Structures are given as structure tokens and as C-alpha cells.
């Protein structure tokens, strides 16, 4: 194969290869972002307001309501309620709960609503925050309920 004769040719070649790759990447982004790789991040009030359909995949963030936690007889299925202090949503999860899971603690769960309006979570994410108050899970109306760990940050 013949080598390139001039600098200009070389530059054009490299540039066009780069542009082609970048163009391909942009197409890729558009294509992939259109699919199910994007998921909405909602709090219970949003779920109520947006009338989310059953089966649509999204992330649910909020606090685990105190006293709502229970376990089914199989020992693996957990039920609890996620609240943002303005609305609540029942959640069902089969698996091992993450270390940080506690009543009153913030959680982010991934899954979809079933026909009964129960959020069936496929994952419950442990948010490890050095100060124990993960963002995106704090109640929107702070006067209605207080985040149990809001006092844990000292003197700042």
C-alpha cells in the first residue's frame, strides 16, 4: 500500500477517521438512549402525579416508612413502604437487602409497578454516603417529616 504523499492528505485521513468515529458514537448515544437504558428517577408523589403505567421500568427514591417493614413466610420476600412524606408507595423485593437498609433510611430501588400498583423492585441500592443522608431520597416537604439522619452532620 502506498504511503501518504503529503501532510494534507494525512491530516484529512486522520480527521475523517476521527469524525466518522465520533459520528458513529453520537448515533450510538442517540440509539442507546432511546432504549431502555434510560430510566426515570421518581419519588412516590411523582409516581402518583404522572400516572406511571404498570410494567414501566423506573427508579424509585424515598424513605422507608417507619413500621412498614415486613417479611413474607418464604423468608426472602420483603415488603415495605417508600414515602416522600407527600405520598407513599408499597414496595415488594425478593433478595438480600443491602447493609444500609433500615426503616426511616433513604433507599433507591429499581423496578416497575405491577397490576396492583405495588412497586416490584429488582434491586434495592445501598447508598453509601459518608454522612448517611443520600441525595434524591430526602423528602420534598421537610416540614411534614424529618429525615432521621439530618442531625448526624455535626457542626457544619
Amino acid at each position, binding site marked *: 500500500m502506498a*504511503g501518504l504523499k503529503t501532510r494534507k492528505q494525512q491530516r484529512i485521513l486522520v480527521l475523517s477517521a*476521527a469524525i466518522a468515529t465520533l459520528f458513529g*458514537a453520537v448515533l*450510538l448515544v442517540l440509539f442507546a438512549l432511546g432504549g431502555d437504558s*434510560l430510566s426515570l*428517577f421518581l419519588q412516590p408523589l411523582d409516581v402518583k402525579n404522572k400516572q406511571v403505567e404498570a410494567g414501566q421500568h423506573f427508579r424509585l427514591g424515598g424513605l422507608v416508612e417507619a413500621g412498614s417493614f415486613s417479611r413474607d413466610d418464604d423468608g426472602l420476600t420483603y415488603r415495605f413502604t417508600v414515602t416522600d412524606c407527600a405520598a407513599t408507595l408499597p414496595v415488594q423485593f425478593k433478595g438480600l437487602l443491602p447493609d444500609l437498609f433500615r426503616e426511616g433510611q433513604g433507599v433507591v430501588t429499581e423496578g416497575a409497578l405491577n397490576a396492583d400498583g405495588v412497586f416490584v423492585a429488582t434491586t434495592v441500592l445501598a447508598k453509601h*454516603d*459518608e454522612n448517611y443522608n443520600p441525595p434524591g431520597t430526602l423528602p420534598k416537604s421537610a416540614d411534614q417529616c424529618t429525615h432521621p439522619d439530618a442531625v448526624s452532620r455535626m*457542626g457544619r
Partner: protein
Amino acid sequence: MAGEIGHFSLILALAFALIGACVPHVGARRGDVRLMVLADRAVLAQFLMAVTAFAALTYAFVTSDFSVINVAANSHSLKPMLYKISGVWGNHEGSLLFWVLILTLFGALVSWRGKNLPLRFRSRVLAVQSLLVVGFLCFILFTSNPFFRLDPAPLEGNGLNPLLQDPGLAFHPPMLYLGYVGLSIAFSFAVAALLEGEVTPLWARWVRPWALLAWVFLTGGIALGSWWAYYELGWGGWWFWDPVENASFMPWLAATALLHSAIVVEKRDALKSWTILLAIIAFSFSLLGTFLVRSGVITSVHAFATDPARGIFILGFLGLVIGGSMALYAWRAPKLSPGGLFGIVSRESGLVLNNILLSTFAAVVLVGTLYPLFVEAAGAGQITVGPPFFEFAAMVLMSPLVVALGLGPLLAWKRGKLSRATQIAFPALVVALVAGTVLVWKTAGGYVMTAFGFGLALWLIASVLLEIAGRIKLWQAPKQALSGLAKITRAQWGMSLAHAGLGVMLLGITISEAFTSEQLLVMTPGDTATIAGYDFKFDGVAPVAGPNYTAVRGFFEVSESGAVLTTLMPEDRVYTNPPMNTTEAVIYPLVSGDLYAVVGEAAGAGRWSVRLYFKPLISGLWLGALMMMIGGLFSLSDRRLRIGMPTGKRSINNPATAKRKKWVVL
């Protein structure tokens, strides 16, 4: 007292950094040797002050001085010593102090190791480095001071998040920071070269060891973090495409590209302005990563301190550094003399392809990471970009890279022959195709993508071996081959090892992702579960006590066709300060894969919920990362990088006689 010493040292360091950032430029402009030499002194002084400050904070942590807010919020008197020390960098303020410590350490190292750099150039480099120190010190002093006092002092501290009390995580941030900050050297070299208006093969030779060192640390830091997630979080996962993970991955991609393009500058005097740009981009990604992690703008699994004032400060600094260096680049880069030519099929082209693919991948990861921010800013609600997006991008962009990686090292510089390269690599192609086909056939067509990845991994490993075989002429003259082996330079060993490491890693990823066996179940003592041919017999649980926690320990006797292999003892720990549960998964690595067990909660009536895995070949992931690191270190130890550096061109070497170019205004 220690707190005040630390605080005072930081202020002094800032003063030294300001001097070091300004005066050397004046010296370089005037050709005043004394002013230029000042850069070395200023850098050393900054380093000593940073060490003092860091030592003061460490002292406060070790002695549990709870009158310091930072210590009270992040430590506890009953914590083991290792975690008292790692607690120093386990929090926002301390980690920034650590960042500054490393930044000044690298400056001091350049000053020490760079005695053979032309003075003019060295003083420019150190001045840019000092400017970065100024930025970070201001950030610490104005928004995140670790030395503030608390009055009255509490009797006991809040403790460190138990998830972070782990040896893997004690060393993960320092490694990662050494990598992030190591890229600052490449950045400073790039900016200094732009200021001086000259990029030579010699420049690449100076930059490459630093970039390589940073890359080795970055690789290690990411691998450690991933390993920690694998065994500490108890999910069996090791990478989640979380914004914070991406933040460390983007600089890694850019640094990898930089390593390769610097070779082209060094050997062939081409791709100069691109390499400069890459050095700027790599460090910008480091800063961006810091911004993403520290500002909390993105909802992430790892959310650290979220303080808007800090976010705005870092964003401003980010804009200044990236904007400033890019403006300088736009102004000066066109004036760099054009470099050598090369053919379409050549080693250079291979490296260009590597660069195009790696930087495109970095760009795609960037888009995926920041997209939620833009959507939220546009008022369209909160969204997250999930793993499918990144996995798809990785597959599409990294597959051609791996294919090219097998052929690239076989091509000659300037003008190579593809036919010759394919001839050498042909057996690798056969191995890959056969292995892929067999896998598809064995699984009855169920795992086409896995077979593809499997084939790619084998192709890469085989072609690396074939490259070595070709180099020592194993086929032509088998008798002399052994002596040929001794002639291979360390840099070449490094390259082969790192490339093979990627292959091994790819092997681990594809096989473990596809063939992991997992069971989530409730077990009563005496029960046996069979996973991938291994029998896990549950022997019940027992309570145990640790230094600052109590735990429930489960016992699993694992046997393979009757022969007992091991007893796995996972724990479910409850820490007292702060009160929190952690799951200590237990992992027993076999050659064929990892046995992995997690014990959950009591499920009533003497039953326990457990999760058991068999993850085939997952060790390939860590082994591959280790091979890459060792490869990097091998290459770093190559004699040619350490000694025998030719001195620079006269124009920048001799400041007294150097004619100042008209457009050097600084």
C-alpha cells in the same frame, strides 16, 4: 495545637505556591536564572508544608482529638488504628488535603528527578504545577478546612462508615489519587510546552514516565475499588457504571490514549498537538471526576458531601483550568512545527486508531454520565443512564480496539505491511474463531455475544504470544530463541504484559458475566445447596465479636463430588459506632472461579437467608489488572526511560543565551 500548626502550614503553603506560580514565569521571560531556580525551592517548600499539615491532621486522628470537627465527625476512639489513619483521607476535607499532598509531592519529584530538564522548561512546568496547588489550597482554606475546631469538644466521635472500614478501601483512595494527580504532571508539561512553543520527541520522553506512573496508579486504584465493591457490598457485582466510577474511568481512558500517542511523538515526532491536547484532557477528566464526586450534582450510589458552595468553587476552578489551557492550546498549537509522515498501514496508524477509539469511548462515557444533569437542568425530571447504554458502547467501541491491538504491535513504524502482520497473527485468528465456534456450539447457540468476547480475548492473548515468538524468531531458529528472549527490552515486555493483561481481563469479564451461577435461598442448618457442581452444606451460625462490632458468622462446608474443599464463613456484622450492618461476603478463589457466599438475616424458625454464587474465571479481572500494572512498571523501569536522556535543544537548554521568541509574552 497540632490543628493550628496544620492550618498555619496550609496558609504558608499557599504563599509559597503563589510565589512558585508567578515568579518563575518572570524569570523565564527575562532569562533570569535565579528567578527560575526559585521554582524548585517553592515546590519543595510547598511539599514540606503539605507534609506538615497532613501529619498534623493524622496526629489529630490518631490521638482522637475530637476538638477538631473533622475528627469528631469521622472518627471514633475505639476504631482500629488502620482505620483511624485511613479515616484521614476517608472524608471530604481530609481527602482534599491528601490531594494537595500528592500534588506537591509530584512537583517535588519533578524538581528532584528532573535535574536534567532544561532549567527554563522545568521552571515553567513547576510554575504550572504550583498554580494547580494554589487552586486546591484555596478550595481547602475557603470551603473545606479540615482544621476547624469544635467547642465544646464532644467526648466521642461519630465514627467512620463501617463500609469504609476495610483494607481494600483504606488503600483505594490513595492509589486513585496518585493516579488522578499524577496526570497533573502531564498537564503541567503540556502547558509548559505550549508556553515555550516547542514540542520535541524529547518532550514526549520526559512526559511518558510520569503519564505511565499515573496510569499504573489509576489502574490499581480502579481495580481496588472494583474489588472492594465485589466482596464488601455483597452483591457479587464489581462495576455498576455509576457516575463516580465513570469519573475514574474517563481519566483512565484518556491516560491510556496519552501513553500511546506519546510513543508516536517520541519515536516519530508526529501527533504532537494531539498529544498535548490529550494531556490537557486527561487531567481535565481528573478534575471533572473530583467535581462530580465532591459536588454531589449527580445522584449516585456513592454520594459524598453535598455542599453547593463547594460545587460552585470546583466548577469555577474547572472552568478556569480547562478553559485557560484550551485557550492557550487554541492559540499556540497551530504554531507547533508539523511532524513526520506515516503510511495508512503503519504502527503510527495503529496508535492513531487506538487514540480515536479510546477518546471516543471516553466521550461517550462523558455524555452518558452528564446526560442526567442536562435533562434535569432542562426541567424534564430526574433520570438515570443505566448500564445497558455503557455496555453497548463498550462493546461497539472496544471490540475493534482489541482486534487492532492484536495487529498493531506487528506493524512496522512509518510503513508496515498488513499482509505480514496477518500472516504472523493468523494462528491467533484460528484459535479465536475455533474457540468462539465451540462455545456457541456447546451452549447450543445461546451465548453468541459471550462467544464473541471469548474469541476476542483469546485472539488478543494469542497474538501477544505470537508477537513475542516472532520477535525471538522461535519458528525460524528455535535454538537461539532463548537468547532472543533475553534481548527483549523491558519496555517491550511491559507492552506485551499489559496487552495480555487486557486479554485476561476480557476473558474474566465475558465468562463470569455469562456463566455465573447464583442462588438466593433460605437454609436451615443441615441443608445442602448445589451450585455449578459444588455442594454448599449449611452448618448453622455462631456469634462472634470484633474490636468494634459484633457479628453472626455462617458456616458453609463446600465439597465437590464428595471431597471437602473448604469451609466458607461469611459474616453479617453490626457495628456499634455508627450503628450499622455490613455484610462480609466470603470468597474462596479456585482456578476455575470464585466460590462466594453471603449470609443475610434470620428468616425465623432457625432459618437463614443466604446468597451463594459460583463465578467462573472472575479472578481474570484482578489478574488482568495486575498484569497491566506490572507491565506499566516494567516499562517504567526500562533503562532507556531512566538514563541516557539526551539533553534538550540549545534554544531551551541554555537560558542565558536563548533568544527569546517574539511571541513569548509571559
